[in-house]
């Protein structure tokens, strides 16, 4: 790739006549009437003697490019120049195909949310506000066609052209389904002529944009909406009478054959988007978020092509240690590593395009790209990512993306290899029209000249050393004070002796300094004006005495060639990527090992109870043997003397490790799935491991009666989102009753239900619909088997699918519930429609109806001692667990709280205090009992041969407040180790310090810094309580309906 190697800037001092003339007459469409005299032009040009980079593979030396009527007619070394062509000598210049930005909003305004136009406390908006035969959801607008909205905007086009772009794919960046994108050039012409391809792409995102509709209000809601829309569109093909005309669904179908571009904008979102695509047979092109390097293997596995922005985070001002304190190591590491993102893609062989989108200033595009080169990206890959790759993806490589005959005359003329720091883009030609970028640099005037100034009194000679367009020195004996400017054609030059001393003492010779430039020692100062014409400049002027003079400057020699500064730099030294990308992440994931824990007090949770001085052997992630004096040559020995070994804690009710928890916009949202939006980076996973937790049931919140599908996870710190999932478990769903569901604390609730009477009816209605739906499917299946029958098409409904699963005992309910009436009412709805409640969670009045729950066969999962935080928990008592347990229920103690989950053993111990439960029974409430409630007791919850090696080694009786987890083991892998934790604390401290010093150095060296920005952690919760979790945490409960005082 010679075109990308360093070349000293070439020198061309020939000036073509007429070259600097602006094109005054724009092209016009034939259908448009002309006012005045027609001025048709064919714009035939031949660019000769250039280094022409046709494409990433082909560079032609000393070649010619011929264009005509906006298109390329010929490219090559031996191309005949047409007689009617204007010849532009490009000796020393480079010509490149101009870049393509595949992720632009050029000429298509992004709608903005009205200021204060969205009030979170306002009543819910259930349906779309868009008038017309469109989709029910306002954020699904595939019918939007960017080509119909597009308007040329030269103010926006100019900076893009100056960064080398000639063509963009632009679309309306709003909504979840955003409609189609249009390929346009950046020519300043009538829209009709710059559109290259009207419908070039279809766009999607995970953000609902300016939609004011309440649904969806969560990440998982957005995913569910997309999935449902795929299904709806499929169904719409059958022209269902019930739907009538739906312009949106029709457009959705029509758009399917286009390249599908998904704005995911974050590493985990990339994977989420890709999974939606996988389900519906779509391979998205994914717009990334710049943090993909943190999970590059997962990203590669998507098999998607990516669109990468170059908006690296700015350094923060961390000089004040009190400000630095709240900037997380993860944020600082991301600052350091973000420029490695494109290189990481190249190294992993993941195809990608580059975009100038997301930059605060488009002018930063090339500097940012050069930074990516510094961090390992190759120039050749970048060139493809800006030309051929996007053009091919969009099916416009026949028109743009290389310099080949027949393509649009979209190209750059530069002074050198296009990505070099010192290279200047001189001109950007779009559709055969020239757009000047820095034309004054066409001629490199740098160098030394002999300046001769002649007046009536004679000539004097100086050396003129031109350093740039606006800097030069005139040298006589000394360097004189000189002002110089050159604008591509005209030159201004003035020079004089150094300014006189203060007080204006007369100069030698008695001449007073005067004028702007002061006096010359023993003579006048000069003001010259003239033109540049090749190697010889000339013009006229005046000296300080007012005498007219003429001058010439003749080129002597060019300055010594400098080197490109980007090449001098050593590859930057950066820290390692951590898994997960948190301070406490791993440089290398821990491995599964065979372990032999010796001589511990083992709380088995089985019939044998507690075993003193006992060994437990772990092999291949399972408990292999329990007994005395065990040995195994393959096993690493852990001394358990004086320590306690227990099964890992299982939290039946948790809200950690998810991007969103509540889809509260409707009362029934069984279509949403927590598992769609797990967040493996959540530091609370690690914190809870340090409290002995090994599995957590991540529940949907309690914002609505029928919430979302839950996800059981194992706390495998460092794995990806799929890796967190507990494999082969019975799926569950969260229901909720009572105050949260009826929005007690909202002053203007308009979402049904508003009372417990309504809650019961929501349930009845949902299951009634589910039954009818199930029957409809059965009918249709039977009918469709009959030969000759008109096929029945039933709309697949994700919401009702989940409810049908409940009816068929394929999905199980865990229901947030408090007071006895609602508990009973749910069980009666179940009796009527044929389902049982698997678990009542929270269930603070469970003690009042423990007999009925026992009859139902329900499990109970409760808080140890919470109460009086709202009306429905006034009768909550700390003896609840004990009474329910005495009544024969399987009772669990849950956290529902990221902090309390770290101390669930202590929460269980409270039942020893309140009601006198035995220690063994109490500990089962956070281990074996939740395993039973979750149908996984065959694998976890006790120490038994054959079960998963999910174990905790404690320093003390595990129910004691003084007990600390020393090791927490999941699947035989030690994910938390108190000694390793100590080492990590040191590492975090050192690494933080290293990066703080690096940011301070960036500031001191004049780099731009922004004020320190605290790394806020969002803590999601049920919507149930106001736990204030610390200085830089944001507690998010029910996202739409704010219930809270704090």
């Amino acid at each position, binding site marked *: 790739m010679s075109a990308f190697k360093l070349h000293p800037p070439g020198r061309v001092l020939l000036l073509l006549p007429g070259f600097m003339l602006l094109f005054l007459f724009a092209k016009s469409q034939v259908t448009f009437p002309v006012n005045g005299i027609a001025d048709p032009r064919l714009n035939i040009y031949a660019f000769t003697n250039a280094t022409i980079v046709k494409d990433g593979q082909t560079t032609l030396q000393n070649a010619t490019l011929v264009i005509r009527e906006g298109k390329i007619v010929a490219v090559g070394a031996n191309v005949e120049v047409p007689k009617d062509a204007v010849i532009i000598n490009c000796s020393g210049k480079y010509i490149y195909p101009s870049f393509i930005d595949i992720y632009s909003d050029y000429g298509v305004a992004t709608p903005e949310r009205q200021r204060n136009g969205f009030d*979170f406390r306002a009543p819910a908006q259930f349906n779309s506000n868009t008038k017309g035969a469109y989709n029910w959801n306002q954020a699904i607008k595939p019918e939007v066609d960017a080509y119909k909205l597009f308007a040329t905007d030269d103010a926006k086009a100019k900076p893009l052209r100056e960064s080398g772009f000639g063509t963009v794919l632009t679309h309306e960046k709003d909504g979840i389904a955003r409609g189609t994108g249009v390929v346009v050039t950046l020519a300043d012409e009538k829209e009709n002529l710059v559109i290259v391809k009207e419908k070039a792409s279809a766009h999607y995102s995970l953000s609902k944009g300016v939609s004011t509709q309440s649904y969806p209000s969560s990440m998982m809601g957005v995913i569910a909406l997309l999935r449902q829309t795929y299904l709806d569109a499929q169904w719409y093909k059958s022209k269902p009478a019930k739907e009538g005309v739906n312009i949106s669904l029709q457009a959705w179908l029509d758009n399917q054959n286009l390249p599908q571009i998904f704005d995911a904008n974050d590493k985990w979102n990339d994977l989420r988007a890709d999974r939606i695509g996988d389900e519906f047979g779509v391979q998205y092109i994914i717009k990334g978020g710049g943090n993909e390097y943190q999970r590059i293997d997962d990203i590669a596995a998507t098999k998607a092509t990516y669109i990468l922005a170059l908006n690296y985070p700015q350094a923060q001002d961390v000089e004040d240690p009190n400000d630095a*304190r*709240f900037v*997380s190591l993860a944020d600082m590491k991301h600052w350091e590593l973000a420029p490695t993102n494109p290189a990481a893609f190249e190294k992993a062989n993941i195809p990608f395009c580059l975009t100038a989108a997301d930059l605060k200033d488009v002018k930063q595009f090339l500097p940012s790209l050069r930074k990516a080169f510094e961090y390992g990206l190759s120039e050749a890959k970048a060139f493809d990512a800006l030309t051929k790759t996007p053009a091919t993806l969009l099916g416009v490589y026949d028109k743009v993306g290389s310099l080949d005959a027949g393509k649009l005359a979209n190209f750059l003329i530069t002074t050198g290899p296009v990505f070099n720091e010192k290279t200047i883009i001189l001109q950007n030609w779009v559709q055969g029209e020239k757009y000047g970028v820095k034309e004054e640099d066409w001629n490199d005037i740098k160098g030394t000249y002999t300046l001769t100034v002649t007046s009536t009194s004679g000539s004097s000679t100086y050396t003129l050393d031109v350093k740039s367009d606006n800097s030069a020195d005139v040298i006589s004996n000394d360097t004189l004070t000189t002002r110089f400017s050159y604008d591509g054609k005209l030159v201004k030059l003035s020079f004089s002796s150094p300014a006189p001393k203060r007080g204006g003492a007369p100069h030698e010779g008695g001449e007073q300094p005067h004028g702007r430039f002061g006096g010359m020692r023993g003579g006048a100062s000069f003001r010259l004006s003239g033109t540049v014409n090749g190697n010889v400049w000339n013009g006229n002027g005046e000296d300080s005495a007012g005498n007219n003079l003429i001058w010439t400057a003749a080129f002597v020699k060019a300055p010594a060639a400098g080197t490109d500064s980007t090449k001098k730099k050593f590859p930057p030294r950066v820290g390692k990527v951590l898994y997960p990308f*948190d*301070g*406490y992440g791993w440089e290398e994931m821990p491995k599964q090992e065979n372990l032999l824990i010796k001589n511990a007090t083992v709380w088995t949770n089985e019939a044998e109870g507690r075993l003193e001085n006992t060994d437990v052997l772990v092999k291949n992630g399972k408990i292999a043997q329990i007994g005395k004096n065990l040995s195994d040559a393959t096993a690493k020995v852990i001394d358990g003397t004086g320590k306690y070994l227990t099964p890992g804690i299982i939290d039946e009710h948790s809200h950690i490790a998810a991007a969103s928890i509540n889809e509260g916009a409707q009362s029934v949202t069984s279509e949403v799935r927590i598992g769609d939006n797990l967040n493996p980076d959540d530091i*609370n996973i690690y*914190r809870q491991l*340090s409290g002995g937790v090994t599995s957590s049931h991540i529940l949907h919140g309690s914002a609505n009666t029928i919430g979302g599908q839950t996800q059981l996870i194992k706390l495998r710190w460092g794995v990806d989102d799929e890796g967190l999932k507990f494999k082969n478990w019975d799926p569950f769903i969260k229901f909720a009753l009572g105050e949260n569901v009826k929005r*007690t*604390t909202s002053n203007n609730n308009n979402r049904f239900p508003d009372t417990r009477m309504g809650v019961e009816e929501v349930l009845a209605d949902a299951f009634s619909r589910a039954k009818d739906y199930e029957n409809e499917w059965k009918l249709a299946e039977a009918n469709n088997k009959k030969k000759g029958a008109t096929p029945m098409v039933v709309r697949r409904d994700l919401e009702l699918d989940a409810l049908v699963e409940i009816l068929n005992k394929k999905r199980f309910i865990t229901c947030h519930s408090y007071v006895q009436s609602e508990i009973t009412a749910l069980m009666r709805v179940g009796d009527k429609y044929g389902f049982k409640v698997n678990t009542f969670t929270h269930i603070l009045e469970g*003690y*009042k109806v423990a*007999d009925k729950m026992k009859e139902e066969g329900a499990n109970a999962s409760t808080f140890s*001692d*919470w*109460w*009086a935080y*709202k*009306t429905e928990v*006034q*009768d909550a*008592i*700390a003896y609840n667990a004990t*009474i329910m347990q005495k*009544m024969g229920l399987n009772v669990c103690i849950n956290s529902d709280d*990221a*902090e309390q989950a770290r*101390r669930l053993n*202590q929460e269980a*111990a*409270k039942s*020893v*205090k309140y*009601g*006198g439960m035995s*220690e063994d029974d109490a500990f089962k409430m956070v281990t074996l009992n939740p395993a039973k409630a979750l149908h996984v007791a065959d694998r976890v919850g006790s120490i038994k041969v054959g079960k998963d090696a999910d174990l905790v080694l404690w320093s003390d009786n595990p*129910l004691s*407040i*003084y*007990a600390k987890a020393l090791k927490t083991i999941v699947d035989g892998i030690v994910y938390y180790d108190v000694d390793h934790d100590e080492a990590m604390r040191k590492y975090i401290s050192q690494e933080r310090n290293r990066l703080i010093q690096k940011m301070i150095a960036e500031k001191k060296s004049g780099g731009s810094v922004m004020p320190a*920005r*605290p*790394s*806020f*952690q*969002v*803590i999601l919760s049920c919507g149930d*309580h*106001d736990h*204030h*979790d*610390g*200085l*830089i945490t*944001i507690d*998010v409960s029910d*996202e739409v309906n704010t*219930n809270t005082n704090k």
Partner: protein
Amino acid sequence: MKKYFIIIYSLLFVAVSAIAQDDVYPAKDFKGVLIITNATIHVGNGQVIENGTIKVENGKIIQVGQNISADNGAKVVDAKGKQVYPGLILPVTDLGLKEIANGVRGSNDYSELGDFNPSVRSIVAYNTDSKIIGTLRANGILLASVTPQGGTISGSSSVVQLDAWNYEDAAYKMDGAIHLNMPTFISRPNRFAIFFGLPVDHTDPTQKALEKIDEIKSFFREAQAYYNEASHKETNLKFEAVKGLFSKKQKLFVHCDQVKQMLVAIDFVKEFGFDVVIVGGSESFQIAPLLKQNNIAVILQQEHELPATEDDDVDQPYKTPFQLQQAGVLFALNDEHDESRYRNLMFNAGTAAAYGLTKEQALQAITLNSAKILGIDDRTGSIEVGKDANIVISDGDILDMRTSIITNAFIQGREVSLENKQTQLYQRYMYKYGLK
């Protein structure tokens, strides 16, 4: 295990009928002599007296130690095998001001309108009939400092004892502290803005905070001038309310967590000579020596808290008390957990003991230290001669939930009921199911 069963049951059955009703009465004054014998006495000042005796007369402790003779006619409580502690003190709370935390505005009296409300007094709204009080008493928490919230200066707090008919009975020390909320130096992004990807306001809140601090200072400067002159043409109730700060009869409780806020609090000490107590102080471990140097006490609000930053040691909040202890800072522990409603005060101390403090130091942080900070250590906070007989007897280690089972509690010598709404509901449903 069985032992606990028996004790709890016998107590419950003696105290209440099987059907719950509002029949838990404050104890009558106890005139005479009370003797607690055979006890392991945790004095509250770090000392432990094995096999000790406490003698109480007319509500005051008159003797503590071994070999104390019995009086004829004295009420004797045999605490053999049990642990005896000073009554626990909840140093900052909305107890009695907030009955139902959410959704029932009518039950809330803890936050007044307005920005500078030094004359607002929490004591007048304190509801002795709050159902929450009984659950604290049952866990050995016998005193609480009832504190207003809201605005910049919220008003004054008063210490109450938790077994009373009305607030005047309850009052233990009135208006001992003025509560100031320090403006924040960290702007917290709107949580909805984050979720909806709206532009987040990243303006530096420092300027705003400094302006507010100026406003607070000028309030106190004027109040000081007002204090210096005895007669006034016009009475200013706000200035009147803070006179005690200048005469040192009151302390200034500054609610803040951030280091910069605490630095400003130190500055208050320097300018006005106030007795300053930091309430919150989650970052106090960062400047513990500076707090010590300036004689500033700290009330740590919530021991069971997540670390402030994701890079912090995972047990940072748990070990903050130890770090303060090491630096010699006077500190107390609080429990402001809104869902369990403050009854886990002793377990906050238990965690501090698991992470560095000795058990006696941890106990002191919920007894004597709290009393010192609240200015009531001349009357309570430890089991020492001359102090009120505010005493708790537990089956075992009060700091550990397995053994923290309270069998008796005395306020000013009166043996108070350990019954409460929860024990009564427990009985009610044990009765329903015929359980024992």
